[in-house]
């Protein structure tokens, strides 16, 4: 089953390896990012970076839209790890059976972003995508690790003045 659908713009990294995998007892990760999937060197590096205790793959958004379904009902604990909220919106749209819940984790302070939580900065396009998902009925919440509090999009959006 899909234990978690999460946005994290650094994809496979320390916090992911050390916390997220064990907190959710993940056995398989579906990594989704067009740039990484289309660059053979980066795809190789990120596939190599998947912790040896689990299995996984890196896909483009297009590939992921069609690849999610079997994981919904599989016996493995699967994490869908998506770099961008825009890609997440497409995935939810293409998979009506997917539980409508998105965890947004660390999103870094890139150009043109607004700080929405201590660890998440979103571009206007990403804000639009999150609003789109909310309108679809997806519960979007912000949380880095499970020992911290979960912040709901409605509150985060209001506090950020968006």
């Amino acid at each position, binding site marked *: 089953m899909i234990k978690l659908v999460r946005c994290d713009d*650094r994809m*496979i*990294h*320390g916090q992911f*390896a050390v916390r997220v995998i064990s907190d959710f007892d993940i056995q398989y990760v579906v990594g989704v990012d067009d740039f990484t999937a289309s660059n053979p*060197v*980066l795809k190789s*590096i*990120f596939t*190599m*970076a*998947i*912790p040896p205790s689990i299995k996984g793959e890196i896909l483009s958004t297009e590939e992921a839209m069609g690849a999610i379904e079997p994981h919904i009902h599989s016996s493995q604990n699967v994490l869908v790890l998506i770099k961008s909220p825009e890609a997440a919106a497409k995935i939810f749209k293409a998979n009506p059976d997917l539980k409508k819940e998105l965890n947004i984790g660390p999103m*870094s*302070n*890139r150009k043109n972003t607004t700080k929405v939580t201590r660890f998440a*900065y979103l571009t206007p396009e990403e804000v639009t995508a999150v609003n789109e998902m909310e309108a679809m009925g997806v519960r979007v919440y912000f949380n880095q690790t499970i020992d911290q509090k979960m912040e709901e999009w409605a509150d985060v959006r209001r506090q950020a003045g968006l």
Partner: protein
Amino acid sequence: MPLGVLVFTHAGLADGFVSAAEMILGGPQKRFAAVAFREGDDLIQKSQEIGEAIRGMDAAFTVVLTDLFGASPANAASLAIVEAQAAIVTGANLSMLLEALTFDWEGMSRDDILGQLCAAGKGGIRTITREMILEGVK
């Protein structure tokens, strides 16, 4: 030809390694640089910075010592070493760093160098209990 040593870690760990190594070795070392991967840094940009640091090393070969396999510093360095005369050892600790800085690597193959650095790092991991200490006092 001496080895270039580049420490590349999350946050200030790299600078900490530099301070500790300089304290032990009695001062600044040649062909030794530190780079930090900070909150919000861009992976591609950081990999270019690493590539430049390697080229600026004045060494035929550079080892990039990084803290955590699969984390952003290691991933950024991985991208850089595809084009550079360098290789990465992860799980860097002070034992490994001191070995890198003090051993005479002349004439050794890349894989032998990497093997020895891994062994040095692992060899530094030992436990000390009070029983062991008191055993020696008897």
